């Protein structure tokens, strides 16, 4: 956490995020097959989230323990999501 860390790629990350957002909006517009579109969009969102966490929240430079604290909940989220999707009833 000292000053000696050189310039970090904050601006580049920002550009990346902006571009990805643009792509997302574009993809959302495309007439793709739903599953594929959702897959791409979630992928892009994940990348953006990862960028923020790694660079803006310094997980890339900080102690690994912090990354574990921040990352572990996502494991639980995935479990929750899988179970609830498996248990939902489609009403038509």
């Amino acid at each position, binding site marked *: 956490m000292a000053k000696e860390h050189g310039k970090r790629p904050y601006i580049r990350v920002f550009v990346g995020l902006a571009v990805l957002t643009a792509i997302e909006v574009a993809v959302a517009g495309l007439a793709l097959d739903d599953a594929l579109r959702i897959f791409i969009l979630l992928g892009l969102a994940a990348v953006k989230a990862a960028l923020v966490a790694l660079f803006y929240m310094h997980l890339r430079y900080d102690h690994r323990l912090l990354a574990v604290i921040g990352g572990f909940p996502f494991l639980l989220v995935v*479990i929750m999501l899988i*179970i609830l999707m*498996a*248990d939902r*009833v489609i009403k038509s």
Partner: protein
Amino acid sequence: MSTATPTAATHKDYRYAPVSFWRRYVFSTDHKIIGVQFLFSSLLFFIVGGLIALLMRTQLAWPWQEIPVLGQYIYGSTGNILSPEGYPALVTMHGTIMIFFFIIPVLSGAFGNFLIPLMVGAQDMAFPRLNMLSYWFMVPAFLVMIFGFFVEGGTAAAGWTSYVPLSALPDMVPGSGMGQTMWIISLLLVGTASTMGAINYITTIVMLRAKGMHMFRLPMTIWALFITAILVLLATPVLTSALLLLLFDRTIGTTFFLPEGGGNPLMWQHLFWFYSHPAVYIMILPAMGMASDIISCFARKPLFGYKPMVFSIMAIAGLGFIVWGHHMFQSGMNPVLGITFMTSTMMIALPSAIKTFNWLGTLWQGQIHLTAPMLNALAFVSTFVIGGLSGVFAAATPVDIFLHDTYWIVGHIHYVLFGGSLFGVFGAIQYWFPKMFGRMMNETWGKVHFILTFVSFNLVFFPMFILGAYGMPRRIADPYNYTFLSNLQGTNQFMTISAYVLALSQVILFVNFFVSLYRGRKAADNPWQANTLEWTTTSPPPLENFHALPVVYRGPYEYSSPEVEEDWLPQNRELVPAPAD
């Protein structure tokens, strides 16, 4: 709070110890005082919840009877008899109070607060002010919940699980009006409080350990409280979100859980149990840890299999997040999920098994002192096993078809929660009382309380398994209008009378507690000749816990070590030649 650097503040506190009564004993930031505050308030709620239980038991033994003298005071509004809507309210309050206001606060709140800094060798929690705040979030929670008794319609009456739609539709039962909303708000406050506590505990245990106190030199109590705090941290917010959704369904007309609006009632159960199954381990792990310390100390023998013990706590916590569906086997949840949940639930019995066997291993070839704390710790082991094993029946999905929501489950609950956690608490109270208050509790009366409690406990709750095998459903005010239960009144009356005895036995504990508080024999610094750090300071400890911060040279269980001739070896005693740290 978050940007403050509290340690500076805490440090100051020691120099100019707060003089005013209020800052010292009421709005105190001293973890020891806060721990004691939690202890007293949760014991108070044990009494409240317990007395409610006695009302339930009375109803189950002599349904719709006028209660001789007290009736007019208790059920005055309904002609001195319990009203049909009264019973579910009693059940709900009993469960809610016992779980959220008694067992969780007494374990994490009271002992967590009092023991963590002392046992890791710190002067206070990492965030003393946050710690105080956490207690002062509990108080309004208490008040709101109690206030529920007085709003019209009475308290929440949908069970401590508050299943929707019963709890979501304000006009479903009398209690699901204002009372249910109170219940939600109260639990929101409790959740916030325990999350604050969890953050504080984890930070303290990771950051403020004394020099040489490696993670694998921590006492089991601390390990248990540590993992418990992690469970609280990650599970509670899910309950919070579920409670908020429920609140919206009740107030602003959303329909998350209401089928009319396309919502999904089972969603509540999923979210609730995603919290509440980990929560049941929140209610047992600290007791396990404290029992481990007590057993090792009074067997005068190192804890058998320290690392396996630690890893099984972790395993219980980890698996605890993927078994919640075992509460929903019959709920209409996709039955295929029943298979996965059943398998994971079966496997979660394994770490508990490992712990059980290691407790036995600790006793093996020990020098067992049957003191009051030890007796209670041993009762913890023996009754927790019964409770756990009864859980395995419920985990067996096909058997659960029959057992679900019968008294078998009620028996399970009480064997793990009363037999397990509560005996652990009884043990812990009598073990750490000298450190908390500088006086000893009366040993003889401790033993009397133990024997009476242990016997009457089993007489109250073991028959529940039989009722369960008869298929007696839970939460029913009057079993006897079912023909297949009509012959069970005798059994129920027997249980109820035993429950009265159980209650009176608790009076012994309370009297012993309060008398010892003033009249008890003065306690030495280390009355049990134990190894952990809290015993190396004075009883009660000074405001800053340790006059000089301890340095740790070994694990917490070096009893009967060949290195010294006495049979204990404190963690902080430096042997010459000093072993490499």
